[in-house]
């Protein structure tokens, strides 16, 4: 495992030293004084022991990080703590009293609060209405908006959140929305705040601001439990770390007394080469050429005069904080969103305004980010899903008639080639695991043998074994002389696979890096891009 450099971007900004100074009571104290204590938590799912006897202790006023790879059991543990799932065994104590929640409502009443990864806000309502929702101050039967507003403004000020109580949530940037979520918890007198991957959607600057807020909360004796897999953030923020692996506690560490290397080893447990860098490809002529591509949004452009080239035998990676135009750029490239300006050619053919079918005919294949909503019809059979796109040509269709036997044969061939673990091609795609579902889509799109493959988040929600398999296949596809445009939120994936990296920020390509120049630190700085410019 390649470790990130010990001194990195996110640390430069906050009062790091203060955070590292253990506060009174913060630490792996005796369980009598623990704010949250989970003992021997066990939770089975069919075929999986998601939690296998986990102990977790968090002291009042502590910032505690819960770490682990995808599938280590973090989410399950937190949903048990928050009353969304019942454990098969184990006990939970909050403030020293044993509890048994059957719903989040009970957890909230006990002083817990969670900021979910996808925010749970009402976009059309104001900040105040979002905060007081479900517990509205009333006056003569109606909502007392003046009192509600006062209370929200007061909380915002006390904890330094800087949120305008009257603003409609739809108009707020992501970082501020997150603080609205925190306000909701504070309004409900939460003493324990659980944050699930809180920085996934934030720019580095927003991340720094969030950390300041969290430190402020801890200083006000609130307990913060942050679920994450980002080492850098754990080192910058937390007092203690609990590392999970395969449903068990792999390590309990004091942040001040540990190193990123130690945490990383606890997380992976083996020398798995997740951040392997593949050798460079043999680069040929240009396949995708984009000049001045623009997509307008409400106000500023979502994609702002983007120009780039992807050549045969090359993987070009697009990095960036979510919401900086990557999605819209890809949609415009593949024909799902009309561009407002610029030019796109695939293999020399102008497809700027062409419908999807014409782009595919010109040599474009596409693995979308959303597998269930866009990339497949989950209710339809694996065979039908694999046939899509091949259904108009021989051998599936002969003299205008679709041949069911050929559809089945085609499905079996791709299932075999891509190692999809599937029973029968007639089974619906929804019966497959995340990794196998992705292999169905990847297999279908690669089978087109298109000159250009556009891939978004190829390994999101995919198990570790499948990740390596998918990476190897992408590189193999590249080495066969195809061009690949890769969008990923996983920096290690971008660095490991790309021959060239483009960093998007606010709809523009902020930086272009060659494979030799790229590391996580430089990418992080580039992603911060314009956000760190003059305010």
């Amino acid at each position, binding site marked *: 495992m390649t470790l990130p450099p010990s001194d990195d971007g996110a640390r430069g900004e906050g009062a790091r030293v203060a955070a590292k100074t253990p506060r009174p009571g913060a630490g792996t104290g005796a369980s009598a004084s623990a704010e949250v204590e989970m003992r021997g938590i066990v939770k089975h799912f069919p075929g999986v022991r998601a939690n296998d006897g986990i102990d977790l202790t968090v002291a009042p006023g502590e910032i505690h990080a819960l770490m682990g790879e995808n599938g280590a059991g973090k989410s399950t543990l937190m949903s048990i703590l928050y009353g969304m799932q019942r454990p098969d065994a184990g006990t939970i104590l909050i403030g020293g009293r044993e509890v048994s929640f059957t719903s989040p*409502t009970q957890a909230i009443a006990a002083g817990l609060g969670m900021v979910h990864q996808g925010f*749970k806000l*009402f976009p059309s*309502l104001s900040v105040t209405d979002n905060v007081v*929702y479900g517990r509205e101050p009333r006056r003569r039967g109606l909502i007392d908006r003046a009192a509600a507003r006062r209370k929200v403004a007061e909380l915002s000020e006390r904890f330094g959140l800087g949120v305008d109580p009257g603003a409609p949530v739809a108009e707020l940037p992501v970082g*501020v929305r997150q603080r609205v979520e925190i306000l909701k918890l504070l309004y409900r007198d939460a003493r324990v705040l659980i944050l699930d991957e809180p920085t996934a959607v934030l720019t580095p600057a927003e991340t720094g601001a969030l950390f*300041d807020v969290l430190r402020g909360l801890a200083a006000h004796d609130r307990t913060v439990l942050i679920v994450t897999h980002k080492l850098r953030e754990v080192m910058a923020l937390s007092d203690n770390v609990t590392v999970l692996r395969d449903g068990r506690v792999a390590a309990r560490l004091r942040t001040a007394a540990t190193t990123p290397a130690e945490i990383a080893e606890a997380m992976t447990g083996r020398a798995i080469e997740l951040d392997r860098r593949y050798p460079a490809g043999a680069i040929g002529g240009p396949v995708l050429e984009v000049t001045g591509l623009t997509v307008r949004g409400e106000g*500023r452009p979502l994609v702002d005069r983007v120009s780039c080239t992807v050549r045969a035998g090359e993987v070009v990676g697009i990095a960036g904080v979510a919401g900086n135009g990557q999605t819209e750029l890809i949609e415009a490239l593949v024909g799902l969103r009309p561009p407002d300006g610029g030019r796109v050619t695939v293999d020399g053919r102008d497809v700027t305004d062409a419908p999807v079918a014409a782009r595919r005919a010109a040599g474009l294949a596409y693995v979308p980010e959303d597998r269930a909503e866009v990339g497949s019809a989950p209710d339809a059979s694996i065979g039908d899903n694999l046939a899509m796109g091949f259904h108009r040509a021989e051998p599936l269709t002969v003299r205008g008639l679709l041949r069911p036997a050929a559809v089945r044969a085609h499905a079996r061939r791709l299932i075999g080639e891509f190692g999809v673990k599937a029973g029968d091609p007639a089974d619906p795609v929804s019966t497959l695991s995340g990794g196998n579902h992705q292999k169905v889509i990847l297999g279908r799109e690669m089978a087109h043998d298109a000159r250009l493959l556009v891939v978004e988040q190829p390994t999101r929600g995919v198990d570790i074994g499948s990740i390596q398999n998918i990476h190897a296949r992408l590189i193999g596809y590249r080495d066969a002389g195809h061009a690949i445009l890769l969008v990923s939120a996983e920096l290690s994936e971008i660095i490991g696979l790309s021959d060239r990296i483009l960093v998007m920020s606010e709809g523009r390509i902020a930086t272009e890096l060659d494979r030799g120049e790229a590391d996580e630190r430089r990418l992080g700085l580039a992603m911060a891009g314009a956000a*760190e410019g003059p*305010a």
Partner: protein
Amino acid sequence: MPIDAELLASALRALTPILLAALGGALCQRAGVFNISLEGMMLVGCFSAVTGSWFTGSAWLGVLVAVAATTAFSLVLAVGSVSLKADAIVLGVAMNLLAVGLTAFLLRTVFGVQGAFSDPELKGLGAVGLPGLDDVPYVGDVLGGQSPLVYLSWVAVAVAAVFLSRHAWGLRLRGVGERPDAALSLGVSVTKYQYAAVLASGTLCGLAGAQLALGNVTLFSENMTSGRGWIAVVAVMLGRAAPVGVLLAALLFGIVEALGFRLQGQGLPQQAADAAPYLVTLVALFLSTARRRARRASAPADEHAAPQPASLG
């Protein structure tokens, strides 16, 4: 032609059933339930109102029976759509046909007639005056002398508007419709609010049916709602599920209908008058979606949209 008092008065009569049903539809929409069974609910309201009035001899008890029966009928949608997650369109189409069959069947078994039931003895709602208002010129002619349910429908618009914007339950209902998962995470029961909205739409459609069968006319005939419930569905869409918006949409429909009726006296074929409200509604939908699109395209630069550097301390 001038829009005189008589025309407006007849427009008000025409729009009241639609308005009441559309208010119910708007509540459902706000709670996240797609209700296309307004037509069937209203028809059940018509029949039960006539039945209630006939057997009790009181139009008011007829209204009460209509409200009770239609609310009970709306339970089908509540249970099916909210609890059992049935497709709202399939269920709506089936409920509308169920209402047609059920009322026709009962018309024959209860009244022993086919097609329509009317009797001079059947008590209608009649007209009431508004004290003090009847004598005001013009206004009195428009607003006075309407069925009590007409006045009730205006009150219902106001109550619904205040409820949705100012009452805690209204806020929660809107939240339930917008982001059910978010409402649930704050301990607000999505099911409860959706049930309430559907049952309220049943109640309102009961009133709508009563107004149609005991107010606008005093009879029941098979399929007498003849598309009014569907117009209410469209009014919900046109009025963006806001009570006042729904009122305006229903008003548009009512005025066109009354105007068409008036023009028939001057030689316009009845069929043209019948068709006009639907065409006008369709055009209004074009304009409303076109305007929304235009606004979206030319939205002014939004200062909030850029990621803020935030407080760096």
